[in-house]
Each structure stands twice: as C-alpha cells, then as structure tokens.
C-alpha cells in the first residue's frame, strides 16, 4: 500500500489511479460547508488548505488542548459547490471525504491536479486512531463541527483513490435510470 506525505505536491499525485488504496501522514485541515463558504467569501483562511478533510470531528477538551474521539468523513457532495473556488484560490491537492462528487467534478479535479480520497463513512473511531494531535483550531465560532481543525495524522487509511487527477472514478454507475 502506497503512503503519501501531506501536504502533497501535484507531481507526486499524478501516478495515482482510481481504485488504488493508500495511507496518508502529515497535516490535514477539516472543512465543511460553512468553512468553505467563509474562506471563499474572505478569499483567505487562517491556515493553508493544501490537504482538506471533509469532517466535523467529535472532540473533547484535554488540558489546554483537544482530544479527537471520533472523526470519520462527512458527505462530500455538499462541498461540491465550493470545489473549483477552493482549488483555484487555495491550491488544494488532496481532498479526503466520502460519497464523492458528481461526474462533472472529475474535470475540475483534473484541471487543478487534485485527487479525491475516500475513507469509510461512519468509521469515526478508526479515523480518530490516526489523529496524533490537534495542532490548531480556527473559526470555532462556527460551531465545533464546522470549525477548521488542523490535525496531525499518521497512517490514516486505508483510503481509496475514488476520483483521480486524470478523470478516473471508482463510483459505480447505477444499473438503471438516467445517469
């Protein structure tokens, strides 16, 4: 299984193919609907957003800091409206979430050289085991789930390369219907 260091340069991601399974280590920033919206409205954020995790963690105060107890991914489709703005303004190269984006997003990911990795939805306890430290937290006034949590993760995964930077996707086409 391939290991990626975060933040990752585009060149190191171009060989990833939809269906590959990887683990990641390094620095991840959680962002959901409200953080995306605010970052794009302000056109700035208090932290770099090279590696974004669609997640609203379950945390507990631990001394002066925070402990992450459960931190699985949230539904990425809600953040698709902000995808192109995020990649253009913040140069994001890795997004981790669940459920994927629509097929239209494949072209956006390709143009900006970004890969989309899926972690198992609901697997909050497993994800929390990979979080070694909460490095920073910003925009807590948006509420705990919507804040920007800067996490140090080690061997987070296995993650599935669900949408690669070359137009590939593992999402199953529904067997019937118009899509």
């Amino acid at each position: 299984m391939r290991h990626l260091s975060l933040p990752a340069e585009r060149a190191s991601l171009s060989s990833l193919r939809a269906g590959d399974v990887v683990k990641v280590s390094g620095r991840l920033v959680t962002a959901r609907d409200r953080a995306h919206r605010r970052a794009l409205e302000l056109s700035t954020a208090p932290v770099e957003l090279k590696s974004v995790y669609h997640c609203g963690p379950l945390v507990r105060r631990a001394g002066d800091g925070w402990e992450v107890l459960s931190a699985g991914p949230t539904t990425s489709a809600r953040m698709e409206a902000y995808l192109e703005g995020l990649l253009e303004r913040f140069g994001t190269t890795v997004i981790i979430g669940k459920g994927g984006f629509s097929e239209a997003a494949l072209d956006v990911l390709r143009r900006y050289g970004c890969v989309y990795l899926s972690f198992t939805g609901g697997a909050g306890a497993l994800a929390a085991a990979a979080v070694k430290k909460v490095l920073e937290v910003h925009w807590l006034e948006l509420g705990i789930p919507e804040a920007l949590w800067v996490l140090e993760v080690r061997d987070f995964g296995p993650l599935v390369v669900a949408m690669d930077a070359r137009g590939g996707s593992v999402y199953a086409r529904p067997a019937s219907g118009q899509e």
Partner: protein
Amino acid sequence: MLDSLIELIRTAVVRLPPDVTAALEAALAAEEEELAALQLRLMLENAARAEELGVPLCQDTGVPVFFLRGEWGEVEPLLAEAVRRATVQVPLRPCIVHPLSRENTGDNTGAHVPVVHRITGGERSVSFMPKGAGSENCSAAAPLPPSAGAGEIAEFVADVVRRAGAKPCPPVVLGVGIGGTLEHAALLSKLALLLPLGTESEEPALAELERRILREVNSLGIGPMGFGGRCTCLGVRVLSAHCHTASLPVAVSLQCWAHRRATLVERSGSWEVVQP
C-alpha cells in the same frame, strides 16, 4: 431514571446493534468486489474498536430522537436533560443549530429537540435512535397516485436510493411508511427502522413488498460506500396505515450502515438497555 437515559444514549452511539453487525458480516461473506469488501471490513473493525474504547462509532451522533411507548406523563424535561448530560459525559458532538441563523446550541437540544414520538400500545419502553445527517438528507416522502400499487412503490423507493448513490453511507437500511397522511407515513418509516433486521412483515402483501424493494435496491449495484458490489441495502421494513381513497402517501427513511438504536425496558423492577 436520568442515569438510565444517559446509558441508553451512550449504548446507542457506542455499540453497533448485533443485528446490524450480523447483517454486515453476512454481506462481507457474500462480497466478491475487493474495494466493497474492504469497506465492509473497515465498518466491522470500526464498530469493534468503538465498543472497546467506549467512544461513539461515528462522529455524527445525530439528531436525538426518542420513541416512548406506554404511559410516560411529562417526561420531556428529563429527556432533554439526559441529552445535555450525555453531550458532556459520552460525549456527543454538538450537532443542533437554529434552522436559519445556523447558530449551534452547544448541547444538542433546542426547540422540539430532542425529537420525541409517543407510540400507543406495547410494552412500556423508551427507544433512542440518533439520526445522522448523511442518510437523513437522502430520505424522501411523496404522495403517489392512489392506484400506484406495489410495483410503483418499489420503483419510487429504488429511485430514492439510486439518486442517493454513495452519499448515505451504503449499505443502507430502509424504513418505508405507506398510507396514512404524509406526516404519518414519515413517522411509520422511522418506526420501521426500529424493527430488527432479518424480520419481515406478518402481512403477506407487505412482506412481499419488502422483499421486492430489497431485490430492486440491491440490483442497483451502488455497493458499500458506492464502490459497486452486491450489497447496497442490509434490510427493508414496511409499515402501513389505511389512507384516503384518493391518496397514497409514501415515505422512505434512509439509514446509514451505522444503524444505531437502543431501547430501555423494565426488567424485574429495574431499567435495562437492550438492542435488537
């Protein structure tokens, strides 16, 4: 009673019910697609780890929803207090916000939250089923044509699941309510989710509808987390009510694989938490 209610909440968010674990194990045994099998394995591994550590298995500890059976009097203040304390003690993620300002209340309570449904009949009990947003955002209700019949109902449900795709964390569990009025069909769809997996309706026509929906949904090929494979749905239950001659309300509540629920029952004079 307050401590029992907190224990009820803790059990529901920490421990995956045995019927769901068994259904995931059966799905894994039947799965041939590598990525789909990997997802099912991780779901089971996660459930085991959460139980071992005593932490919520999913960070989305959801909207708190209680179902009261039998006579409870004015128990509502106690339920809200149990949610507030569980938010600190378990802990739960503060998920509840004002619908317009989106300001988080911080303690998982608010106007009409926790949601409380009072059910007449049956043994005196309190069930707790936290409802996560990923799956609830894909739930749907619609007035179907009165002449629709089982085929069109199954088609409607399959279409809701097809449009949901990977979003609700499949394999999903489906609660379906048919008949009554629109809000009653929606409540029936939630009550159907409380029933144990692996059971079916005692009414032959409804049992046949449940099997038909399960067959059609599993033929969609969405699979665990949307990666294809055999298992898109772990189980379907349908509850029905009679309805107006000119209408056929149908509601479908999607539940993620992390189908969390627990019930508080009285056993020889003390309260005990049980799971299906």
